[in-house]
């Protein structure tokens, strides 16, 4: 099936994926045919992890059946093939992010490891006692805890950008946080708990005026919009494969070459060295310096296939269609009495966090599950966000380009059922 043939031309801001395109796309995802609790699966937990199309599954099978070997080592056929496919995946990621060079792409286990790599490699080398690290109130724990560990180790200080009741960061408060001691900004591109899209380009520019490097957590942005790290001008960008139709166990750290070059290695081992004696080891050049040991070769190649797949549909088409889904879901859920949407930023990704008056999110999740509907309930690994909105947890529906308005209708019916049961 050729998706590109069914994708209509962009028509202004309107969605370019019509029903026929969506039907074809859904056919690519075997898991969407599942029955759960005796009902067709309605998968609305894409911010936690997305599903995998047959094209990526096939790529994994082909790699394992015909191409697998260790990489960067032997001279035999399979090793050379696996190496060239692995490095081809790196180039695909480079183009996906519009990075200047492929050596600026480091494969990691995921966003979390990418952030930890920067904390160890950059933070421990260049952030010291009394220095300040700026984070935002929207961060996922993965972009909080590593910096707290660093702050504790070094005696550095964490500063937090506050947000308003809509879940938008307060830009004036952000700018006021900068002092001569500010040494780093770690910021999420898109909030996983609320869907807020932060004005990262302007925020990066402001940080740079103060000579402060910036890491963007792109876990929630990567699968949903066109990315351009040169345009954003961020110093580091991190994302995960499994949130963009790839497998778990693979993620990416983009870093500007001149920063990566002056950073300390994250882990020691094979592949990250040029020469080893018991007296001295010479580290390899980037990106190998940061890829100790045998990497997740299959997962990296599968990520490359996922990038190809998303590219065929078109990330701008995906973004437009997902916005249409978000608008529709927001309109329908907001119309339900007794339901509050949490996170109402003007610029949002397709994430809808909500609470039903008098019903705990976990009860919502259990009852929706009995209708075949998968949503996330809990604090979304963003407890400070929950504290800001004075809720212990929320229910969160998050949409992907393979979801439909009919599925949103089922969500709304499910919410009504919950309310009926708890009335």
């Amino acid at each position, binding site marked *: 099936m050729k998706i590109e043939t069914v994708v209509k031309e962009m028509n202004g801001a309107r969605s370019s994926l019509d029903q026929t395109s969506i039907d074809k796309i859904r056919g690519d995802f075997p898991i969407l045919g599942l029955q759960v*609790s*005796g009902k067709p699966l309605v998968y609305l937990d894409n911010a936690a992890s997305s599903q995998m199309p047959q094209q990526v599954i096939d790529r994994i099978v082909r790699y394992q059946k015909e191409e697998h070997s260790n990489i960067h080592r032997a001279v035999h056929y399979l090793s050379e093939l696996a190496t060239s496919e692995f490095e081809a995946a790196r180039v695909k990621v480079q183009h996906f992010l519009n990075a200047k060079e492929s050596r600026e792409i480091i494969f990691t286990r995921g966003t979390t490891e990418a952030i930890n790599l920067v904390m160890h490699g950059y933070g421990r080398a260049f952030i010291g006692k009394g220095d300040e690290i700026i984070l935002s109130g929207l961060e996922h724990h993965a972009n909080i805890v590593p910096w707290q560990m660093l702050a504790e180790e070094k005696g550095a200080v964490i500063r937090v950008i506050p947000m308003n009741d809509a879940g938008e960061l307060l830009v004036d408060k952000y700018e006021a946080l900068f002092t001569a001691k500010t040494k780093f900004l770690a910021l999420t591109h898109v909030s996983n708990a609320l869907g807020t899209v932060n004005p990262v380009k302007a925020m990066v520019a402001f940080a740079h005026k103060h000579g402060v490097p910036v890491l963007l957590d792109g876990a929630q942005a990567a699968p949903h919009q066109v990315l351009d790290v040169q345009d954003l001008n961020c110093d580091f960008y991190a994302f995960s494969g499994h949130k963009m139709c790839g497998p778990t166990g693979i993620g990416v750290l983009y870093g500007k070459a001149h920063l990566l070059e002056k950073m300390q290695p994250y882990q020691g081992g094979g592949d990250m060295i040029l020469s080893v004696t018991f007296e001295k080891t010479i580290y390899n050049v980037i990106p190998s310096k940061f890829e100790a040991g045998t990497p997740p070769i299959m997962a990296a190649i599968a990520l490359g296939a996922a990038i190809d797949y998303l590219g065929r549909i078109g990330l701008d088409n995906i973004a437009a269609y997902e916005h249409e889904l978000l608008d529709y879901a927001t309109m329908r859920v907001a119309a339900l009495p007794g339901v509050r949407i949490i996170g109402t930023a003007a610029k949002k990704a397709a994430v809808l966090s909500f609470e039903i008056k*008098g*019903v*705990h*999110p*976990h*009860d919502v999740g*259990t*009852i929706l599950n*009995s209708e075949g509907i998968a949503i996330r*309930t*809990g*604090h979304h690994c963003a*407890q400070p966000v*929950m504290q800001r909105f004075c809720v*212990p*947890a929320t229910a969160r529906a998050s949409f992907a380009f393979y979801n439909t308005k009919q599925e949103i209708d089922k969500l709304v019916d499910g919410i009504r059922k919950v309310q009926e*049961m*708890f009335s």
Partner: protein
Amino acid sequence: MTDMRQLYQEVILDHNRKPRNFGAIRDANRHAEGHNPLCGDHIKLSMNVSDDKIETIAFEGHGCAICKASASMMTGAVKGKSMQDAEVLVEEFRGMATGTLDPDNVANHLGKLKVFAGVKDLPSRVKCAILPWHTLHAALNSEASISTEGQNDPVPDPVGDHA
């Protein structure tokens, strides 16, 4: 899959809406806090134990309907009981919720608490039902004012209880 009406029976919904023994006891001589970091359920238990008997017991905090109803019904079930009898109930409730005790075929003291039998089919919800009981166990086995929260939790981590 459990029928939702079997899990969310009227008695559970009623205890969720109107939890019994809700609040804090001022001069309590036993306290414990139970926290489920995975879902944010948080229970604070206070009670007065004298001569090995639970004289008063109350809970506060927030959690889902299963957790709140479990806490509410637990306080009703153990008030006036000896510490030993309460511990027996803790064990029986745990067994029922995790599926190792079939309350309809094995002698037990669960009585009305059997409405929670349905959670055993919902692995992700077992911990919600058990949290108040873990907290009770902690309160019974600790000195006054010991928190079970965090890494010093003297009871098995409720999250890992039914992975």
